[in-house]
């Protein structure tokens, strides 16, 4: 404690603040952490609602505007939707035939919540989610950096049950609010020293001191056997104290200086390109400065509205969600494909940034040490199957790219559910076999260094990744 005067000055920050800790789980310091000596491994997930265009083969638009590539694992041919990735061809993998089994008959408007969790959230009634894959990794590696994870979305906050505006869910399945204002994100990452948190830490410290003294007094009156039981409590308090100390150290550690020339901190979703570029740049800077190793970014929310619908202004089109409903209108497939193409274009710009930057503390480039995935929990109209997923990077921890990986059986040409624009599609019987997306997550977690054999109800890894 630093004397009463200092505390008096902070008084305005302390109104109503509890001694309960909210920060230390997130903000911990790990100078001694063993993971820090090795090259960082990073995870980032980009989610776009509304799925992609999936016309029937018989449709003239199929050749140019079907999202999935044509051809085999190595000789695949990208359509106009993904052709912006051609220069990065050897750095990417494209997946088909993956989905979360529990959601295959859930309406597309409700399925974003389970994209990174695989939980059985259902379509109505009581709601319960589970931990998301990014947070599993954040719990594993979070102590090595100032922030365990960076959670972003265009719409911000948590959204509603079955209408998530965040991809990230904590270990109790509760949504983690996403940030959506570039200025606030930047300040949190590189500017603001949280004085409120500091004062709370100090108060917490005093309470812990008292509890330790209290415990020791009790300990003296116990049998030696019961003293061992109480030792667990004492250890728990000491662990908490250690966390406080680490959190305090982060508060005292100067922020890294970053180059802000690609940031437009007042960008808004209606200037979608600028906004996307700024948000991606913030993730890039957070990775570069090793402020975090885990990030999620959700581009909009299912069922449109709010900032989401403004995103398609970037390519001169009307409200984004409406594009999925209008595929049978003139140029419908083309418009949806153009919108998806622009999403991928911004993602590829981010990938280039990572690829062109050498890893600060090791050999190679940053992309080789980052697993970056981009996807949606629906393919065709409101259809929660055959998720359109692509990933990039991760070469230094086991990913070999330049491949189009087809999983499951019976849908090799991605025609199941193609061309639909009514709700009978998503309600229809599942006719083809798909593999659990969670198996890809198990693969990713294992390669990131998390010892696990199961995730989101699925056991085992995905063969061939």
């Amino acid at each position, binding site marked *: 404690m630093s004397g009463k005067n200092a505390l008096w000055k902070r008084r305005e920050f302390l109104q109503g603040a509890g001694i*309960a800790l909210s920060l230390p789980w997130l903000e911990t310091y790990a100078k001694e952490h063993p993971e820090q000596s090795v090259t960082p491994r990073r995870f980032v997930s980009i989610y776009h609602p509304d799925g992609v265009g999936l016309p029937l083969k018989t449709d003239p638009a199929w050749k140019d505007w079907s999202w999935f590539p044509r051809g085999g694992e190595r000789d695949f041919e990208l359509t106009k939707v993904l052709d912006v990735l051609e220069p990065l061809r050897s750095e990417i993998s494209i997946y088909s035939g993956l989905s979360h089994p529990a959601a295959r008959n859930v309406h597309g408007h409700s399925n974003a919540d389970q994209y990174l969790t695989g939980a059985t959230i259902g379509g109505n009634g009581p709601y319960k989610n589970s931990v998301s894959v990014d947070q599993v990794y954040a719990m594993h590696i979070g102590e090595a950096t100032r922030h365990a994870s960076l959670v972003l979305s265009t719409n911000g906050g948590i959204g509603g049950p079955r209408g998530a505006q965040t991809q990230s869910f904590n270990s109790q399945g509760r949504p983690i609010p996403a940030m959506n204002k570039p200025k606030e994100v930047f300040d949190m990452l590189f500017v603001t020293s949280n004085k409120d948190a500091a004062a709370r830490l100090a108060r917490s410290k005093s*309470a812990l001191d008292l509890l330790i003294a209290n415990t020791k007094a*009790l300990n003296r009156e*116990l049998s030696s*056997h019961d003293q061992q*039981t109480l030792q667990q*409590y004492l250890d728990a308090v000491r662990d908490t104290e250690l966390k406080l100390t680490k959190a305090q150290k982060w508060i005292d550690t100067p922020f890294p200086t970053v180059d802000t020339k690609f940031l437009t901190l007042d960008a808004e979703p209606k200037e979608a390109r600028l906004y996307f570029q700024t948000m991606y740049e913030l993730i890039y800077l957070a990775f570069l400065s090793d402020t975090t190793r885990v990030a999620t970014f959700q581009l909009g929310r299912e069922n449109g*509205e*709010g900032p989401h619908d403004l995103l398609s202004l970037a390519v001169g089109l009307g409200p984004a969600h409406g594009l999925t409903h209008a595929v049978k209108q003139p140029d419908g497939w083309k418009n949806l494909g153009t919108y998806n193409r622009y999403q991928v274009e911004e993602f590829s710009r981010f990938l280039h940034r990572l690829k062109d930057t050498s890893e600060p503390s090791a050999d190679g480039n940053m992309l080789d040490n980052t697993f970056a995935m981009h996807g949606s929990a629906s393919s065709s109209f409101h259809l929660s199957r055959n998720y359109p997923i692509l990933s990039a990077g991760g070469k230094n921890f086991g990913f070999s790219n330049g491949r189009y990986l087809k999983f499951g059986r019976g849908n090799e040409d991605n025609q199941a559910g193609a061309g639909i624009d009514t709700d009978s599609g998503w309600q229809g019987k599942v006719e083809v076999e798909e593999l659990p997306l969670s198996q890809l997550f198990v693969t990713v977690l294992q390669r990131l260094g998390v010892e696990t054999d199961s995730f989101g109800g699925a056991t085992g890894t995905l063969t061939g990744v």
Partner: protein
Amino acid sequence: MQSAGLLLWMLVLFAASLRSSEGSDPETPSTPDPRKADTLESARVSGRTNSRLLGQSDLAKNTTTNSASVTPSSEIPEANLADFRQLISPILNQSCLPCHGPHRSEGRLRIDELSPDLVNGSDSERWREVYNAVGNSEMPPEDDPACQLNDKDRASIVDWISQEMSKAPIAIRDKTQPSSFRRMTNYEYRNALEDLLSVSLSTANRLPQEIASEDGFKNSSTLLQMSAMQFETHRDIGLDALHRAIVFGNRPEPVRYRISMLDQIEKPSASKKKAKNSEFFDKDDNDYEKKRRGRVLLNLETGQGLPFQEGSASPIADAIGEGFGDPSAVVLVVPASNEVKWNLDRFLPDEGIMRVTIRAGRSNSNVEQHAALRLIFSAHTSNDANFSQVISQRDIPIKASVDKPECISFDIQLQDIQRNPFRKLSTTFPRRDEFLSIRNVSNAKGQEDPLCVWINDIEIIAPYYENWPPKSHTDIFIPSSSVSDQAVYGREVLSKFLRRAWRRSVSPTELEPFMDLLAKYRAELPSFEAAMTEVLAAALASPEFLYITQRNTSSENDSAPQTISPIELASRLSFFLWSSIPDETLLDLAEQGSLSDPAVLAQQVDRMLADPRSSRLADTFVPQWLGIDGLDSVTHITDGSLKESMRDEPIAFFKEVLSSNSSCLDFIHSPYVVINETLANHYRIAGVRGPEFRKVAVETSVHRGGILTNAAILAMNSDGKDSHPLKRGVWMLKRILQDPPPPPPPNVPEVDLTDPEILKMSLKERIVDHRNKPACLSCHSKIDPWGIAFENFDAMGKYRTEIQGLQVDAKSLLFNKQELDGIEGLKRYLLLNRQDQLCRAMVDKLCGYALGRPMSSADRTQVDRITLAFRKQDDRLGDLIQLIVSSNLFKSR
């Protein structure tokens, strides 16, 4: 069938021959033929005369310490070295030694060097490997003809090792000397906070789940761990609870909705969505009788009605008092299993209690029909994205007649329910409104004159406070003449609070650190109350609150049994009977020293059992004792209300036995059941109406009575499609007979369902076939007969006489050749031959629960003593509680 029966018979004989030491029942000096006893009631009477325990106590009153064991589990476990030398060692030497002996030691295993003492020796892990390898026929290798093992020898090895392994946990338990010093369980913690602070809390999912002991108990001291995560969660919850109890500033102006059905019918545009449904109907209409029983607004005077789709309400501005005026003639008719939904827009506050008061009555007085109301909260944030949840804790029955409607109230803690996260947006999409639905839960559907609930008025107030400041606040910030002197008043508040929270008076010296903390916080925080709140939060994170303490009053080397202090006795008593902290009365009596007086103690037990908090004894003990959580592991019970009734039945039964101080043998069989309408329908018992449980006399022909035939037990011990005799057998041994079988070996061979021969067999035949494998035989012959006797009950616990056209075969043989003929046969056998074992198991389980630790062999004398007294008092459950509380065991540290 016949050949299968013969095979079973042979196997059982075979098993019995392997276990010469267990060939006969522990009691039954002269085994009576179970079929000769006419009724289960008379079996119970004659079974009592077979009690070895009661007989012994009459014959040999002098032998106090060395009374004969009642069950296998009460023996001090000792390694069976004699069998090893005579039976096992020669086989091992012949079949294993060539490769695992002095000449070669494959896998670095020297079979001749393993200590045959699995109880105290150091090689039990290696023996487990031997057990698995031999049991799974992996060893000896098939290609070595010199070392082959015949099935009988293989079974002998497996049988001996499994028996020895099952002794080890008891031995370990004895060595570690479990103590009753422990952390509160999560449910005790929640009760304690609720009782201490007079608040309602929802701690669900916040704290890590508790692990159950081998006996199923979650309050077992060694398993109640503490981690940094758990500790921090306790701090969060403690502070949260204090914030619910303590108020700051002025009374908040509540949001208030008042919905009168008269208004609704007079301005129909507000209450309907679609114009085409807004047509009024009246008595002249052809189907008037049908219409007026639909979901409608109905004017009881004119008979005029209006279909009701969905209502909407806005907060009222005028702060007139609570309550309604005289009821109007207009009611909202809610038919059975229907909901009426109200759009409350977005004005409910974030926190505090929402009180929903409904004035309603019944549309008829038919006692065969009942109705209760339930609240559901929902939001519809966009098309195809919605959620809903039941927010009321329990359904409230509507009993008033329609001319005298009554008010019922629900109190809902708003921060504990799922809210619409978009309610504060400035834009209108996603939708910001929230909905409250009132559901009529009733049995009246499809009846001729179906009972409807007629609602007159609805009032919603949030946040609701009965008084200001609320009692929860003034219990902490007590009225005092020293309020203005914060140093004095702070001590008063703290010492009162700490005495309740820590269950003991706290000395002035102990207060000092808290006063220092208060001073520190007071400098930073805006008010005395705010600073005190955080100091109290620290007190609630202290081990003095979180742990049930027992202080060491004598020196470490003192080997005499030590007893707890009177103040600790108060806590032990309240955690046993209330699953929570003691009240002021108990603390006062303890501090005056009179709680140690046996008469006062007995009186307090009676008082506590009469208190509503004692419901927690049954609510927590019974599910743990019987393992009712198993219901959550099966998915075939799709009817939610049936599942809830199943879960509640054994609890209700226990409460009945306890309150009437009946015999514990009622758990095995009783001429009555304790059921509600849902279960009565499930069991096909006529004449039971309503959701509340009550005692109903039944004939033997319904095959119910006791807890063994409770649907919950039978259904949770099923595999989802059919009965599961193995699960049921294991359950009997573990939960009722206190004679748990050893755990199954890994890689249990699956029954090959592609084998056409196996597909032809009945379930019982398959079990026999499976048992034929030496790895399985030794355990299965002990387990299966108990489960097969339940074959007349299907996966839902319904009685059946046929399975797929074949007559049910529920006859089985215990390895001591005793036949169990179906459920009646099983009950008769237990009542005739196993009363001592059943009673001792009950004593053992309740003592383990009461002390928060499993009973060890060191407790055996005490447990036997209580069992004897219990048996002498006709096995009465209420008496047993008194016997346990007054025992030395209960006072021991």
